[in-house]
């Protein structure tokens, strides 16, 4: 059979020659291999100072988007929670009152919106299920905590701040090959 790679090696169990039994040539050969590696460039990315560039399809911490006028997109339809295979998302819907038009885009909004980051598997199905372009997975990393309950992220963490909008254009364009 023709081999698929050029790394094919025929294994044999013929008895070792005297030079092989000495082991020393092989040891010296091995030591020069390690010596060669000593002068190679390392591949380490020193994390806090340097950060790896994420691919556009990277799925990290979620964000709840606002529209151009700063109103929350989420209408608490619950499709993300239904889609979530890990059952990480819970929400309580609320009705928009008079005078809150600047805060929420539609009459219904999420009073409580929580994602348990320990349950989340970052599959991105919530993002796909969302009809209002409200929830997105970003290239931010979920930081480590010491307590379990600190991983339940509420709206205070998830909703993007007005003065510090989070760019999700890369996520919006994944799958639509022509636009990128």
């Amino acid at each position, binding site marked *: 059979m023709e081999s698929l790679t050029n790394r094919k090696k025929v294994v044999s169990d013929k008895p070792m020659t005297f030079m092989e039994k000495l082991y*020393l040539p092989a*040891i010296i050969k*091995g*030591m020069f*291999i*390690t*010596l060669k*590696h*000593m002068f*190679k*460039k*390392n*591949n*380490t990315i*020193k994390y806090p100072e340097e950060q790896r560039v994420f691919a556009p399809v990277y799925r990290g911490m979620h964000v709840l988007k606002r529209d151009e006028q700063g109103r929350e997109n989420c209408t608490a339809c619950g499709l993300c929670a239904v889609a979530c295979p890990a059952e990480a998302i819970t929400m309580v819907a609320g009705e928009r009152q008079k005078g809150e038009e600047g805060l929420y885009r539609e009459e219904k909004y999420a009073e409580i919106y929580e994602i348990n980051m320990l349950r989340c598997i970052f599959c991105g199905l919530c993002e796909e299920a969302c009809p209002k372009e409200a929830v997105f997975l970003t290239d931010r990393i979920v930081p480590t905590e010491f307590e379990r309950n600190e991983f339940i992220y509420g709206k205070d963490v998830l909703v993007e701040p007005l003065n510090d909008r989070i760019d999700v254009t890369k996520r919006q364009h994944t799958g639509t090959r022509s636009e990128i």
Partner: protein
Amino acid sequence: MDTGLLIEKLILAILLFVVSLGIAAYSTYFERKLAAWIQDRVGPDRAGPFGILQPIADGVKMFMKEDFTPTNADRWLFILGPGIAMFTALMTSAVIPWGTDITLFGRTIALQVADLNIGILFIFGIISIGVYGIMIGGWASNNKYSRFGAIRASSQMISYELAMGISAITIIMLSGGLGLNDIVKAQHGMNWNIFYQPVCFLVFFICALAETNRAPFDLPECESELIGGYHTEYSSMKLGLFLFAEYVAMFVSSALISILFFGGYNFPGMDNFSGNTLALLSVAAFFTKTFLMIFLFMWIRWTIPRFRFDQLMHLGWKVLIPISIINMLVTGIVIAFNEGWIKF
């Protein structure tokens, strides 16, 4: 006995203590760096510039850890084990000549704490006691892994000491003296023993690896099968002492190898210097050789995988001992022939 001598030896002993601990501390750092370089990594680089404060951080960490003694452990032997390991590792450096005589304040000071006329026997004796540290530590832990580690350590050390001793005898025959000073003086200039006894060097070096429990002979403490071997149950600075003793032992055996085979403080062209210049240069030469030897120890550790126990015993008893005995006999015959004791 005059007070000057006492003060001089005291200072030398304290200096030696500090230097060997310092070198051992920095060998841990260098070992980690070297391992990282060999594996295309960076290694410790967070504590201070290039991570040079890492040994201090490690030491502080060791002291801060909980000092735990298992319930069924023999309390006193449990403490004695690491103590003996460290004590013996440090004690061997007493007879090592670090350089030629230095002249300070009108006194001629020998850079050697004790010029024993049986220096090499002293070192072998102390190294043999060193195995008690591991044995007692492993036995007192009352843990099967520790006991396996201890048993392996003792059998390994006893087996390899034989070949080591026989190769040392070969060197003693060449230089005609048991004192380390005599051995060094016999290798004046570039007249090093390695050029006469390469086989002996190889045997001695392999045995030194086994004696200091370094890879590929680190069976007493192999992490993968014995979860740390004799120091499984140890924590805090007791563990630190065990780990540290290994590095001190490595430093001392590197020094011993450079004395026996690489001419100790001798360096080519040493006749052109005299007095304190010669002393300083000789100390520098000695330490260069020792550091290169330590580098070789570490380089081997990160290249060669660990032996299996039967392979270890096979190598010790069936390979190294016959080789060293044949080597000794041949050397003896050649010496006898050169001296004219036998004629053909």
